[in-house]
C-alpha cells in the first residue's frame, strides 16, 4: 500500500477515498458527483488531454493497487479528454509521444517517459460510463455537467460491482515520475496554456501587409521555470511545460 504522505505525487483536482480500494474515478470535463468514499481510492476531474492526463497517469502508476479507471462525466469540445484516454489505451503514443488516433486538440504526453505511459496502459482497465450526448462547441450551450439522478445511480452501481471484485496489485511496486510541469495547480496550468495560446494566435490575426512572417521560433529563457520569449510580439511568457508550449504553438500556427 502506498503512503498517504507521499501519494498522490501530482497535485490536482481530486479527493481521496479508501486507500485499500483498487478503483479510480475520473470525471471527464467540468462535473462533480458525490459518491461514498469507500467505493474509490481517488476521484478527480480531467479537463485537458495533455498535462491533465499526464497527472492522472503519474498518480495511477505511483499506486500499483489501482487497477480500474472508471471514466464518467461528459466529453468537452476542443480538448476531448475522453477521446484521448480511449485512444491512449487502444493505440498508445507515437515517437513524439502524441496519442495516436484521437480527435483531441493537443494530445501530447511530452513530460512523461514512454515507459510510464506503457505502465499506465498495462496497469488499468477502463470502465467507460460517460454521458454520450455530443459535446457542444459553445460553452454557453454546454454548461457545467450536472450528474442526473440516473447517471449518479449508474456510477454507484458500477462502483459497487467493482468493489465486490478482487484485484491483484500490479507487481513491481510504484513507478514514481516527477516533472516540474506537473507540479503546478490545475487552474494555473490551464490559465498559462490559455494565455500562451492567445500569444501564439495574436500575430496570425494581423494583416498580411504587416510584413512579418510568423514562422520564427520561440526563444528559450528558462526550461526549468518554463519561461519563453515570443520574438514577434516581444512577449515573455510563462508556460507549465516548454515542450508542450512548443507543440501547442506548432499546432495552432501550423509551423
Amino acid at each position: 500500500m502506498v503512503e498517504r504522505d507521499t501519494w498522490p505525487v501530482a497535485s490536482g483536482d481530486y479527493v481521496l477515498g479508501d486507500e485499500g480500494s483498487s478503483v479510480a474515478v475520473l470525471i471527464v470535463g467540468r462535473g462533480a458527483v458525490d459518491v461514498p468514499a469507500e467505493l474509490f481510492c481517488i476521484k478527480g476531474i480531467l479537463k485537458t488531454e495533455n498535462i491533465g492526463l499526464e497527472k492522472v497517469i503519474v498518480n495511477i502508476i505511483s499506486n500499483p493497487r489501482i487497477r480500474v479507471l472508471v471514466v464518467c462525466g461528459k466529453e468537452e469540445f476542443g480538448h476531448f479528454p475522453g477521446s484521448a484516454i480511449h485512444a491512449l489505451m487502444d493505440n498508445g503514443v507515437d515517437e513524439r509521444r502524441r496519442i495516436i488516433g484521437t480527435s483531441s486538440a493537443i494530445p501530447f504526453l511530452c513530460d512523461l517517459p514512454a515507459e510510464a505511459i506503457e505502465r499506465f496502459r498495462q496497469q488499468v482497465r477502463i470502465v467507460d460510463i460517460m454521458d454520450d450526448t455530443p459535446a457542444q462547441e459553445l460553452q454557453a450551450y454546454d454548461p457545467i455537467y450536472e450528474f442526473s439522478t440516473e447517471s449518479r445511480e449508474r456510477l454507484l452501481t458500477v462502483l459497487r460491482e467493482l468493489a465486490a471484485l478482487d484485484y491483484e496489485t500490479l507487481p513491481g511496486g510504484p513507478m514514481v515520475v516527477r516533472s516540474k510541469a506537473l507540479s503546478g495547480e490545475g487552474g494555473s496550468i490551464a490559465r498559462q496554456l490559455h494565455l500562451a495560446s492567445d500569444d501564439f494566435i495574436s500575430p496570425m490575426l494581423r494583416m498580411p501587409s504587416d510584413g512579418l512572417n510568423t514562422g520564427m521560433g520561440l526563444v528559450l529563457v528558462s526550461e526549468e521555470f518554463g519561461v519563453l520569449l515570443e520574438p514577434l510580439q516581444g512577449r515573455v511568457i510563462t508556460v507549465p511545460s516548454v515542450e508542450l508550449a512548443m507543440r501547442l504553438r506548432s499546432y495552432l500556427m501550423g509551423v
Partner: protein
Amino acid sequence: MFKFQTAQRQICIGGENIGGQPGHRRTLMIGSLFYPRHTVVLDPHEGVIDRPKLNDRLDRYFEVVDGCRCPSGLMLYAESAKAAREYLEAVCDRVPGPLFADSGSSEVRLSFLKHAEDMGVLDRVVYNTVNAGLSDQEMEGLRARPPVNAVVLAFNPRGDDVKGRIYMLENGDDILPQGLLETAEEIGIKNVLLDMAVTSPEMSAGAALRAIMVAKAKWGLPTGCALHNAVECLDLEKLQDPKEARRHVDSSAVAISILAGADYVVYGPVEYARRTMPVASFADMMMEQSVRDL
C-alpha cells in the same frame, strides 16, 4: 525589447515608482553614500560627517539627477547605530526618494528601522537585505518592527546559476526551510524588491541578468541587481589604463542591466551618478522606443 505576460507590480517608495514593464517606466538608480572609506565620513562609528563636503557632493548629485531626470534613491551604509541615525537625519529632509538601509551588522540595519520610525520616514526606508544568512536574532528584530520595504536577495551559497537564485526565493533550495519570498511575507514586508545577487564575474554574475527575466516572468515583482559589483572584481590590470577602462565598463554595466529588464540598478558610489545616470537615461530611452508598439 520585450513585454512580460505576467502582470508587473509597480510600487511607490518615497515618491519614486519602481517596477513595471520594461520601457514603460524609468529605471530607479541607486547610489551609495557613507560607504566604507567615503571621504564625507569623518568618523564612521560616531557618524560624524564633513557637512560642507556632503553638501557639495549632493549638489552635484542633484544636478545630474535633474539633468537626466532619473528616478533615484540612496543606499546608506552605516557602521554603528549612532551613525545610522546621523546619516538618516542628514539626508532624509534633503534627498527625496527611497533610502536603502545597509550595513555589515544586522544590529545597525535594524537600528535604521527604529530611527526611521522615530523620524516618521519608515515608509521611505528599504531594508537591505532579507537573505539566506538571516540569523534568528535578526528575524526576531524584523518581526518586532517589520520594514515597509525590503530588498530580498537571491544569493544562493550552493548555486550561482539562474536556478540557484530562483529556487532560493521560491523554496529555499533545501538550504532554508522555506523560500525567501515566504519569509518576507511572514515578516510582514509590504513592498518587496528582488535583487538577483551579483558578486563577481567568477560567480556567474551574468546569470543574474537572465534571472531578472525569469523572476519578473514568475512573480512580476520589481527586480534589479548591482552589476557594478562584478565590474569591481574584473581583472583589467593588463590594460594600459585600468582605471579608465573600469569606468567605461562600469557605465556600460548600467545599460546591460537595463536591457536585461532591470527595474532598478545599484551603480556604486553616489559620485558615479555623473557618468552612470546619462547611460541609464539613454538606455531607458532606447527601451521605451523599442517597446512602444508592444
